[in-house]
């Protein structure tokens, strides 16, 4: 497994894509849709890495190694999850800076811990739709991206609308004062757990699909 991950990091993911995490800096914009800041990794890194891997015949190479087909899927799901987690960590840094720059908060969801928790769920949902769909063919990226990106738009829109329209939701998810942040820790924890659970499920479904196809 480590060997496949090593392959992902050395041959598949160009170091440039780690820099997409810096789009987290968009969290510093006052009054904005912060979920978008965390979508750049999905807009830029995912399509490019998968299309590049296809052009390089990465699957053809990977299955020549002494690994099982499902390990190839696992390595890719893990490496892309690393990018997502990196994005959340960088975003956390900008959330911390944002609190001092925009103490008044945002008209939509604030850049806070609950927001990071929701972003993790968003990534989990993206993974759940993207990976199983992609590994039905192992090479077609278009439709899986379209569907999974739509899901992330719908999910983030629902959260934003609820925060604005439903005070009870706003109470749990909104606010960027120190006390609000502390009360949001369970949301972040739940978001992390959901991200792990959904991604794990995504891997299993994707691996099952990939086992069935002929290379």
């Amino acid at each position, binding site marked *: 497994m480590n060997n496949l991950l090593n392959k992902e990091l*050395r*041959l598949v993911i160009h170091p440039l894509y780690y820099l997409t995490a810096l789009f987290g800096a968009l969290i510093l914009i006052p009054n904005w849709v912060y979920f978008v800041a965390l979508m750049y990794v999905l807009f830029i890194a995912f399509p490019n890495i998968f299309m590049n891997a296809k052009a390089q*015949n990465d699957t*053809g190479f990977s299955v020549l190694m*002494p*690994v099982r087909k499902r390990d190839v899927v696992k390595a890719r799901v893990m490496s892309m999850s690393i990018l997502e987690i990196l994005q959340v960590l960088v975003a956390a840094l900008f959330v911390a800076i944002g609190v001092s720059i925009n103490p008044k908060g945002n008209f939509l969801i604030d850049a806070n811990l609950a927001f990071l928790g929701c972003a993790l769920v968003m990534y989990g949902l993206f993974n759940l739709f993207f990976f199983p769909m992609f590994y039905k063919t192992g090479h077609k990226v278009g439709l899986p991206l379209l569907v999974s990106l739509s899901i992330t738009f719908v999910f983030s829109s629902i959260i934003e609308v609820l925060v604005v329209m439903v005070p009870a939701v706003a109470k749990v998810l909104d606010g960027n004062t120190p006390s609000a942040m502390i009360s949001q820790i369970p949301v972040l924890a739940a978001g992390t757990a959901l991200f792990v659970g959904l991604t794990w499920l995504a891997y299993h479904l994707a691996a099952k699909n990939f086992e069935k196809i002929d290379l």
Partner: protein
Amino acid sequence: MEILSVQNLSKLYPKFDLKDVSFSLEQGFIMGFIGSNGAGKTTTLKSMLGMVHKDGGTVSMLGMDFDQHELEIKQHLGFMFGGVDYYAKTKIRSITEVVRRFYREWDDSIYQKYMKRFALDESKRPSELSSGMRIKYSLVLALSHRAKLLLLDEPTSGLDPVARDNLLELFQEFIEDGERSILFSTHITSDLEKCADYITYIENGRIIESRTKDDLLQAYRLVKGTSEQLAPVQARLIANKTHAYGFSGLIKTTDLESADHLEIEAPTLEDIMIYYAKKEGLNE
């Protein structure tokens, strides 16, 4: 000991079936896997390795069931499907760096030896190599981890005659210790005449023959005769070709009768392939 055994392997496609493919290979021998384009050679090899999802049958290698011991078996297996067709713009050195970590028994001295022997330069990228060189690099990767069994798909096609001859010599060296074996598919039958001990012949997804090369060549005869002589033997022929002066055909040695008074010759592997392919064509 049987190093490879394939039993009733099958794979169903909408327009093509691989049906009941069975053959086995002992330690210390080279088996040639022949068949025309699209006969099912690559599909068989890929189904054996789990790259193509098989619909039935069992495969065992090195005395272990493949499905149950896939990882362990793959550690001792070298396989290649054509030349290096991945990471065209990555330096060979970087590709090797990634590959070597996968194998417990990777041996850098073997790797360096073959790289030198094939005159491959590590600082080149696959896109800068000729197709023959790409096949050679692919082979180096398959050889450098002390594999016990090599499964090679068309390792000689695209190589010049000298390189092909070198490669066949290398195959002989590889099996010399009597513990390692090679199964390689090809449609260049002259390669097999030089080095194969066993031949497995597949046509239209079915195994037609799998036995020693000498037995196989003994089992068939090429016959020639006049147009008048054709009728009495035609039913016994595997297939025949007619021309202005008469006919030529392939027949099983056991089906020959001295009363036929035909001109009899020993066939080459190519003759056997050509007549069987002709027969399959007639059946369609």
